[in-house]
């Protein structure tokens, strides 16, 4: 049971971070379907940092550097989306999808190149981080506390304050609702959308490294992040683009994702004799069902997905 709570919390942290990223980007008016690719890139940044840093260094610095690397990779990568969708008015769906494919392909190529350069016989796309991973964990009894749980809570609070209590947040949301109106009162729509996408890159990158550190201590980059970026989008829609509701719906989705990791520990679930694949499917099935019920009264930002053109009204 404790294990289930632990996994639920860590997976919900991932989903919360990434969904908040999506929330910022969509409130500014850009649909970020590339979250999956951004997660992979953020994870790559963090994993590379963990590979090259000396594990003997003080834990605090190690954690900070890993986080910063993940953030930097995520933000840089998301700027590819921003350039194409904001400045060149490209189709946001195509570019987002391209970023997802590019993320996995690029990460695989980079990691394989590094592995092969270090050892010509090693053609895997795996990075190991057993030692550095321990720096992120604090054991309380048998419960493995992960610092990302704190980061996720902080992110929710920060997102709430920024979106509803600051000038920046309100302006950001104005750009997603009615960019022409925002422009007419002197808000730079392009700048606001850029910041929305960059924030989603930062949060997506954090979510990516968090996902890599969630259960395992090595990661095969060929696998990407198994649709987690899209699960986060489902969480965001279910959370009606509001930070606090996003956090709650992340808990729900996280619980189902966790179940596929730990269902074997429960006597009655094992007794049901359901194949493991069914538990793997669960989070996706649940999200489909939830989306079917929550999408019809969607509170999506009005102008999301439409490139801003000054000459239109």
């Amino acid at each position, binding site marked *: 049971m404790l294990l289930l709570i632990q996994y639920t919390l860590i997976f919900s942290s991932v989903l919360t971070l990434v969904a908040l990223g999506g929330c910022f980007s969509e409130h500014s008016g850009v649909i970020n*379907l590339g979250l999956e690719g951004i997660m992979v890139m953020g994870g790559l940044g963090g994993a590379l940092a963990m590979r090259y840093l000396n594990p003997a260094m003080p834990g605090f610095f190690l954690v900070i550097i890993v986080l910063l690397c993940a953030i930097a990779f995520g933000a840089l990568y998301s700027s*590819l989306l921003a350039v*194409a*969708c904001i400045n*060149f*008015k*490209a*189709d946001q*769906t*195509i*570019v987002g*999808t*391209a*970023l997802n*494919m*590019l993320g*996995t*392909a*690029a990460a*695989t*190529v980079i990691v*394989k*190149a590094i592995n*092969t*350069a270090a050892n*010509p016989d090693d*053609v895997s*796309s795996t990075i190991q981080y057993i030692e550095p991973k321990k720096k992120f964990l604090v054991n309380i009894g048998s419960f493995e506390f992960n610092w990302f749980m704190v980061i996720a809570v902080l992110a929710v609070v920060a997102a709430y304050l920024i979106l509803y209590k600051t000038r920046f947040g309100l302006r950001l949301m104005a750009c997603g609702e009615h960019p022409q109106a925002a422009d007419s009162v002197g808000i730079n729509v392009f700048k606001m959308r850029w910041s929305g996408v960059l924030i989603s890159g930062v949060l997506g990158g954090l979510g990516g490294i968090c996902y890599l550190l969630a259960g395992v201590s090595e990661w095969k980059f*060929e*696998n*990407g992040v*198994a*649709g987690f970026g*899209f*699960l986060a*989008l*489902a969480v965001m*829609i279910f959370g009606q683009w509001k930070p606090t509701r996003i956090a709650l719906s992340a808990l729900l989705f996280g619980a189902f994702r966790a179940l596929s990791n730990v269902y074997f520990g429960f006597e009655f679930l094992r007794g049901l004799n359901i*194949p493991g*694949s*069914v538990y*793997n*499917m669960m989070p*996706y*099935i649940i*999200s*489909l069902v939830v*989306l*079917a*019920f929550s*999408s*019809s009264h*969607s509170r999506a930002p009005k102008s999301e997905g439409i490139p801003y053109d000054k000459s239109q009204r």
Partner: protein
Amino acid sequence: MKKSFWKSEGFKSLLASLICIVVGMLIGYIVLLFINPKGASDAILTVVKNFFTYSKATSRMKYFGNTLVKTAPLLMCALSILFAYKVGLFNIGASGQYCAGVCACLYAALKWHWGWLPCLLLAIAAGMVFGCIVGLLKAYCNVNEVISGIMLNWIILYGTNMILTGVKETTSPYTFEMRNEGVQALLPSLGLGKLFNSNIYVTIAIPLAIIMAILVYIVLDKTKFGFELKATGFNKNAAKYCGMAEKKNLILTLVIAGGLSGMGASFLYQTGFVQWECTTSSVPGMGFNGIAATFLGGLNPIGTIFASYFIQHITAGGAYVDKTMYCSQISDLISALIIYLCGFVLFMKMAMTRISAKRDEKKALEKELTDKGGND
């Protein structure tokens, strides 16, 4: 006045696609240079050359056949995405529908020992069912088709692994060899294999895929049905106002798109060229490469035929790069880059129009000046 070829929409699309390919290749080359400058030129040439790396003409022909065998399913997935895109829907679920097709045709062939035609039809039906789910969710529950498509992709992947475990070899994670257990379900070759140095995998799938492309072109551009679908895509409300059943059109589109992807699965798996691995942990890339082929083909079914071949050509070429220095995923990287660059196509076309308009203006001005000069 007849519009010149150089100013036509088709030429602009072609030029934009070529720019995408060249820039994509160039970035791929730069990445290779970073990894290892010594073999980069060789590696990128290998990717482009694919089967031409073989010196013997006969083996070239054989591997050309192999590339074509894998082009057929890719073309079908690309057509599926194209069909939906023309109606304003982004069918990212093509991978999942393809996967469902694999599951259906393999299970029917290996477990129930059905013939090739029923297997093919079952694969199409399986794709249609999942296309239909996406369509229903979109039409009645307003669920974004991209997100529901991705969710279904994963559900279908796990489901396929689970179901096909029933027909897998006991010692390996792969399904039974078609040539041993499901000979009756192999697509007929009609002697086509002979053309490719007796390549047993070359079947009617390849011409069928091309026929389907032409069919999609005819349906979309030359029939009332296709016009209605496109009208729904342009403006759902206007279509409804004109008395079209916009919800029905939407669902029908995704059903057809799903069927096309499912058919693609049967075109590859019923040749016995590949087996399904029951521990597959990621959704088949066919549907995603299909996106690249669709946009590279300038959203034209005939262009898609060539684009699919090109994408498959470099994907197959990636397998020949020197593994001691590079990995085969370099071609995935290039096709992903090409999709990203396709996002800029609209901008490129606008720029081209602007340049040619400027040139026309200049010419007109000069003409005016010389005309005036003549009058004086």
